[in-house]
Each structure stands twice: as structure tokens, then as C-alpha cells.
């Protein structure tokens, strides 16, 4: 028997799990609209909340940002405090971290995706990389403390900080490099291999240049995560009050997130506002980095088309 009026049939009695709803079509539709609205509301409210938090930070800290803020060192007196040491520390950390993590990460990514024979060992390394990506940053900090600071004797230097951050960003760079390479059309690879190129020549001359925008995007995102990290630096003994600019990788250092942490943990309102000002600087740096990443992505898309 064909029942065309299945809405009322459903509300009366039906064994179908999809249709045993109570109420008539009107209330079911109302429920549906309400649910759609709730989903929309969740999205808008989270974005709105973050926007509010950031806006409030700008209002709190905006007034503290002036030339002195960038040229003074941190001090007991809020009025005379600045982020010179932290800013330079972050730049140093970023530089050394990039020096170690980009070559190792990108090469490992290329090797794992293109050159390495698929087998037990390949799977082992892949699983290991994704496991490392999930290890909390404090654990990297503890490892850095035992290995770089104590065992290798780098002490509380920029080098131990940067090496720890490098190990931390490696899995992220490797994973994004592999994704970028996997997105390269296989016709490019097949073409090169068909012309008699070796796997390495294909990877170097054809796959790597094509995947470069994607790789760069991943590298920028990984490094911008690294410069926002605080926990490993605290464990490694970055000092919070420092009145000099580091001049080499053996020097002690502080960094922007470290400075924010020190100021937030003070009870005085003025220091909180200084922290807000430092957050504005840090978010500014991250925004620039992310914009570059997005710019690269858009440009590479245009080139392909």
C-alpha cells in the first residue's frame, strides 16, 4: 500500500527510526529552525567572544605602546618597563629554530613522502612523527632540560631553548611538508620518471618546486606556533628579568611569551596592562606571519590557474 501522507503517518505511528518524531510537521520544522539557529549562534558567539577578548586587550594595552616600550628593558617600575630584551630574544629564538627545524623538517618530509620505500620502517617513522606531534610542549621542555641544558651542558642559553623549540616544531613541519608534496599532481611526477629521471631528480627538480608554496605555508605556521610557546622556555630556565640584548647563542635570554607570563602573574594592574601591550606585539608578529602564509597560498593558487 502506498501512503503518500507520510508526515501524519509518521506522527501517528511508525517504526522507522528517522520518523518516530512527536508532534506535527509545524513543531518539527520549528525544532529544525531552532537547531539551525543554535548552530549558527555557536559559531558567531565563539568568533564574537574571541574578538571581544582581543579588542579588550587592545584597549588595555594600547596606551602603553610607544617608542620607550620597545627600547626599554623590563623593570620593577611599570612606567619604565619595556620589551627590548624579550623582542630580541624572540627574534634570536626564531632565527636559530628556523636554522635547525626547516632543513631537517623539510628534508624528512620529502624523504618520507617521495624517496623512502613503503614498508614497516616507513610506517614506524610516520606513526612516530604523528605521535611526537601530540606530545605536550612541557614534555619537550623537560627533555630539553635533561638533554640540552644538563647533558650537553648548553646551560640556560638561547641554543638550548631554540633546539628544544626546533624538536617541537619538527613533526608539524614534516606533516605539512608531506601534505604539500602529496597534493602535487601525480602527472608531474610520472612525467619526470618517464623521461628517465631518478626518484631524487624528480623530487628535487619537479616535486619540490611545485610543492614549495605549500611547504612554506606549513613552515611559517609551525614557526609561528613555536614563537608563541612559553612552557618549554620556563622549564629551560629563560630568565624573566634580563637587562641586556643577547649577542650570541650562548647568552641567556627572555622572550615575548615569557615576558607576558611574568607580567600576568604579578598582581598589580599596571603590569597586566604591560602584558596586554606585549600581547599586542606578539599577536602582531603572528598576524604578519599568518598573512604571509595566506598570501603565499593565494599567489600559488593564481599561478596554477
Amino acid at each position: 500500500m502506498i501512503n503518500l501522507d507520510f508526515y501524519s503517518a509518521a506522527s501517528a505511528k511508525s517504526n522507522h527510526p528517522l520518523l518516530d518524531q512527536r508532534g506535527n510537521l509545524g513543531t518539527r520544522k520549528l525544532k529544525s529552525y531552532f537547531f539551525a539557529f543554535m548552530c549558527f549562534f555557536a559559531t558567531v558567539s565563539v568568533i564574537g567572544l574571541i574578538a571581544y577578548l582581543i579588542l579588550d586587550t587592545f584597549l588595555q594595552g594600547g596606551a602603553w605602546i610607544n617608542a620607550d616600550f620597545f627600547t626599554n628593558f623590563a623593570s620593577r617600575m611599570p612606567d619604565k618597563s619595556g620589551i627590548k630584551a624579550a623582542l630580541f630574544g624572540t627574534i634570536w629564538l626564531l632565527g636559530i629554530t628556523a636554522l635547525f627545524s626547516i632543513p631537517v623538517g623539510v628534508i624528512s618530509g620529502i624523504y618520507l613522502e617521495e624517496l623512502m620505500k613503503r614498508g614497516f620502517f616507513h610506517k614506524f617513522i610516520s606513526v612516530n612523527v604523528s605521535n611526537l606531534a601530540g606530545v605536550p610542549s612541557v614534555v619537550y621542555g623537560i627533555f630539553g632540560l635533561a638533554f640540552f641544558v644538563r647533558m650537553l651542558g648548553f646551560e640556560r642559553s638561547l641554543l638550548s631553548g631554540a633546539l628544544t623549540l626546533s624538536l617541537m616544531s619538527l613533526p608539524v613541519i614534516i606533516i605539512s611538508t608531506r601534505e604539500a608534496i602529496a597534493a602535487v599532481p601525480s602527472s608531474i611526477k610520472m612525467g619526470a620518471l618517464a623521461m628517465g629521471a631518478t626518484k631524487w631528480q624528480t623530487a628535487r627538480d619537479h616535486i619540490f618546486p611545485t610543492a614549495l608554496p605549500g611547504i612554506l605555508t606549513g613552515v611559517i605556521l609551525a614557526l609561528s606556533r613555536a614563537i608563541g610557546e612559553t612552557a618549554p622556555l620556563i622549564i629551560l630556565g629563560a630568565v624573566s628579568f634580563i637587562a641586556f640584548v643577547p649577542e650570541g647563542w650562548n647568552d641567556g635570554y627572555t622572550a615575548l611569551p615569557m615576558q607576558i607570563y611574568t607580567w600576568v602573574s604579578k598582581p598589580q594592574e599596571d603590569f597586566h596592562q604591560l602584558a596586554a601591550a606585549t600581547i599586542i606585539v606578539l599577536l602582531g608578529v603572528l598576524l604578519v606571519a599568518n598573512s604571509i602564509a595566506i598570501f603565499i597560498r593565494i599567489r600559488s593558487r593564481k599561478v596554477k590557474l
Partner: protein
Amino acid sequence: MTQSDQPLSEWTNKAYRRARWEQMFVHYLFLAISSVTILTTIGIIATLAIESQHFFSHVTFGEFLTGTKWEPLFEPKKFGVLPILWGTMMIAFGACVIAVPIGVGIALYLSEYAHPKVRATLKPLIELLAGIPSVVFGYFAVTIITPFLQRFLPSTEVFNAASAALTVGIMIIPVVASLSEDAFRSVPQSMRDAGYALGATPFEVNLRVVIPAAVSGIMASVILAFARAIGETMAVSLAAGSSPNLTLNFLEPIQTMTGFIVQVSMGDVQHGSIEYQSLFAVAGMLFIVTMIFNNLARKVVTKMKQAYE
């Protein structure tokens, strides 16, 4: 060049041999570079194991796992991990209670309701939230969220678990939203169409077709978010305080495992002292717990992929 004074076959042979040799060289060089990740894992496990071993020569394993007092900095020192393990779980559960419904709601909106253009703008925006450093969220927690809670619940203390859980909840929303959205989008359109053909409303299709079909993806995202919440450090140590407390009251200060590591690191720890060694025992515990959750999530994801491929 060599081409002109040598037969072509000899030249190609040479070039071919050179390329093969280069390939071999590169292969071993790159293998060595790639093994850095393996060495990292071995290094982490080895350092955690060795220093923890020293720690467990002072404190018995049973005392560590079942003790209900965590007082490593005062005499007599007590090393029962339960209070800080409980604190970590409280924050992680609290954060998930907030992040899961909101994150799944966002994912449903993005994949089922939003116009493709709106989705293309909002998804990167949500993912950008994941890029905000955790110390910045710590600042939000201390200066905005805690005072906000205190206004509505006057018994809220300056350091409290609620503020930390709320903040971590906001931090892990992008994880839940982004991964769940991927799961929803991998549900075949034909399944939705079948639901609509039976006369279901969009809500009924979402609730009884899309969500059940994507449930393993949602679960994976929740597990990963939970693992992230367990490892979260800065926001928690700034907002929750540093009082290891076996409590159910979210308005009291507590301490998490990560919070303890930061607290001890901020002070001057003597190398080789029991406080120093306790860092490694706690970090080892953290490592094992997050490892279990991450592998669980990966298992669930592989299962999901098998279901639709």
C-alpha cells in the same frame, strides 16, 4: 662538452651512473636526517625513564599512584600524584563539556548550513583561533574570565578551576570544530538525500543520519581535544593556581600536572634533588596519558576512513 667527442651511449651511461650514485648518497643522507625524529622519541623516553627511576628509588610506585597528598615542596614531603592527576582531569573534562557541544555545533553549521562562501571565510578564521598562544589565553583567563565569574558567583576564588576549564574549553573548540567538520563532510550526500526523501526535517537528518554516520570522526576530535587539554600548560597554571586539591568544587584553586611542572621550574630547583626528579615522573605520566589518547584517536580515525573507502 663531453657529448661531442664521446659516443652518446657512453655519455648517457655516465650520466645515468652519476645520477644513481647521487640517488644512493641522498638516500642515506636523508635517512640519517629523518632519524632525528626517532632519536627524539628515544631521547624523550630515555630521559623520562632514567630520572623517574631515581625518583622511584625514594618514593614507592604505589605511594606515587595512590597517595592523596601532593606536597613536594614542604617537609615532610609527600608525593601522591592523585591530587594533580585529579586537577588535570577536572580541567580536561570541564573543558570538553564546554568545547564538545559548541565545537560540534560549529562543525554542523559550517558543513550543513553555511553557504560555501561563508564556510570558506569562517573555517580559516576558526582555525586561526588555534594559533593564539596559550599564554595569551592565560591573560584572558586572569584579567577577564575570572573577574567575570566572580561577578556572578561571589564565592569564586582568585585562582579557580572553573576559569581554567572555561579558558581551555575555548582553546580546544577549534580542534573539535575543525576535525568534526571534516568528518561531517565525508558523510556521503546520498545518505542525507535518503533521509530527506523519507520526509525528515534538516534537524532530523542531522541528528539521525549525519551525526551517527560521522560519530567516529567526532569521537576522534573529542579524544584529541581532550589530550590537548591535558597537555595545556600556561592558561591552566595562570588561572587555576598552585594548590594541589582533591576537590569537586570548581570555584576552588587546584593544580594540574602541567601546572606543577611550571611551578617547580619557576623556582630554583637543585639538579638531582627529589623535586627535580619528580618533574620527570610527572612528565612521564603526562607523556603516557597523552600518548594513549592520541593513539586511540588515530585508531578511531583509521576505522572511520575504512568505513567510507
